[in-house]
């Protein structure tokens, strides 16, 4: 399947791009992260500490163990600091 993967804040800066299109068969977010880490050092550095990251699937907050079935947009970002 083809996914749009978005990055925000320092995650975007470390990876060096705000979005990329990914062709993957990953079953869960964690599987997708493992594939992204294998890509290059930038991704590996960005995903080094999952506890400091959040993920949204089709614009809804989710967990790293969430399945990707039917999902089109995956976003990774640090904890939000709005308000």
């Amino acid at each position: 399947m083809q996914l749009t993967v978005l990055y925000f804040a320092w995650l975007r800066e470390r990876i060096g791009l705000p979005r990329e299109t990914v062709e993957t068969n990953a079953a869960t977010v964690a599987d997708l992260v493992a594939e992204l880490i294998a890509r290059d050092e930038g991704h590996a550095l960005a995903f080094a500490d999952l506890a400091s990251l959040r993920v949204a699937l089709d614009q809804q907050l989710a967990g790293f163990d969430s399945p990707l079935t039917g999902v089109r947009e995956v976003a990774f970002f640090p904890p939000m600091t709005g308000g």
Partner: protein
Amino acid sequence: MRLSVQEAAFDAGAEANAFTAGLSRAGAVVTFTGRVRDNGGTLAAMEIEHYPGMTERAITAIMAEAVARWNLEDALVIHRHGRLAANDPIMMVATAAVHRAEAFAAAEFLMDYLKSRAPFWKKEIRPDGADWVAARDTDEQALRRW
């Protein structure tokens, strides 16, 4: 119920008055305005990044929950993104209810959720560098009371 995610500055007093003008049964109006702190003059600017689309979805859901839970007469959220200067308004929340307890609780609930669950990220720009603002443990803890 009105939500605006915008780059432009806003006039908090004028927004509060417009919000209040539409009310009839509400005896209580609470507003919260968040401002860029100048950090003792060390702040050159604040940049706020957001996730277009999710921002509106997340805040609309939070507002609908607040309106239902506290039986609000009305609610307003304005949140800016882009480049802001010290002492600029960042965002505001307004809630209206028959009595004050509901208006206060709903405004605090909205703020706690906006802080930690709406997809905004702040970066502080100083003359000598820049840093992403770290999430505060106390903000995450504040969510647990609801």
